[in-house]
């Protein structure tokens, strides 16, 4: 049960709550939606990082959302919590997951070595996109948890300027 009611617009819970400030809701969707609308990074990479950060936050509402266009096979999705010990992930995915792993609770301990490994696989434009994406995944979980928003299972693009915000 959320601490205060969302608006009555026809939208997922997260957006019903953000819609208390319609202007900010629209701009937030544009900003967050950039990752999917404009394909800044591979969808599968975004999805595995989004899921890992939600797991670290123990955020069920975020984990109920699944991006079908990421085309993450079930065994690989199930391996995300144990990515460090799994052979399912490429070196580039592992480099990104290493940063995601520390983002919510240990951001000061991201090492130069971990960043150098990231730079072995991604250029600076991609690193900036990935880092901002991780910050938003982290922020979304915090928002959902602080306001105790309920989740709804949805197989959909997590964010888009034109569609609902899940």
């Amino acid at each position, binding site marked *: 049960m959320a601490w205060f009611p969302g608006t009555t617009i026809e939208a997922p819970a997260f957006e019903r709550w953000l819609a208390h*400030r319609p202007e*900010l809701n629209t701009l937030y969707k*544009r900003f967050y939606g*950039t990752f999917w609308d404009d394909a800044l990074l591979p969808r599968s990479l975004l999805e595995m990082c989004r899921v890992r950060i939600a797991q670290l936050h123990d955020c069920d509402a975020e984990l109920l959302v699944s991006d079908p266009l990421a085309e993450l096979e079930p065994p690989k999705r199930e391996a995300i919590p144990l990515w460090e010990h799994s052979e399912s992930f490429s070196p580039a995915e592992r480099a990104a997951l290493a940063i995601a792993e520390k983002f919510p609770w240990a*951001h000061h301990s991201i090492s*130069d070595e971990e960043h150098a490994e990231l730079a072995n696989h991604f250029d600076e434009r991609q690193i*900036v*996109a990935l880092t*901002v994406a991780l910050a938003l995944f982290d922020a979304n979980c915090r928002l959902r948890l602080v306001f105790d928003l309920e989740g709804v299972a949805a197989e959909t693009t997590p964010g888009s300027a034109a569609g609902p915000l899940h």
Partner: protein
Amino acid sequence: MSTNPRVQSAIPGQPAHFGSVMAQQPLLLGRFGELYGTFWSKGVVDHRTKEVARMRNARVTDCGF
């Protein structure tokens, strides 16, 4: 935490700072600016309260920048 910027400025002649590094992704920077600028320039929470919260968040996050 690194004491040197890990990503270079995308703006010639400018050091690496929040805006110049974000400029590596102009689309993201533009949309962030719209959102964050609206947050600060309009709204139902007074400016002083937002600033106090921003400063406290920076301290808790240990963000000297």
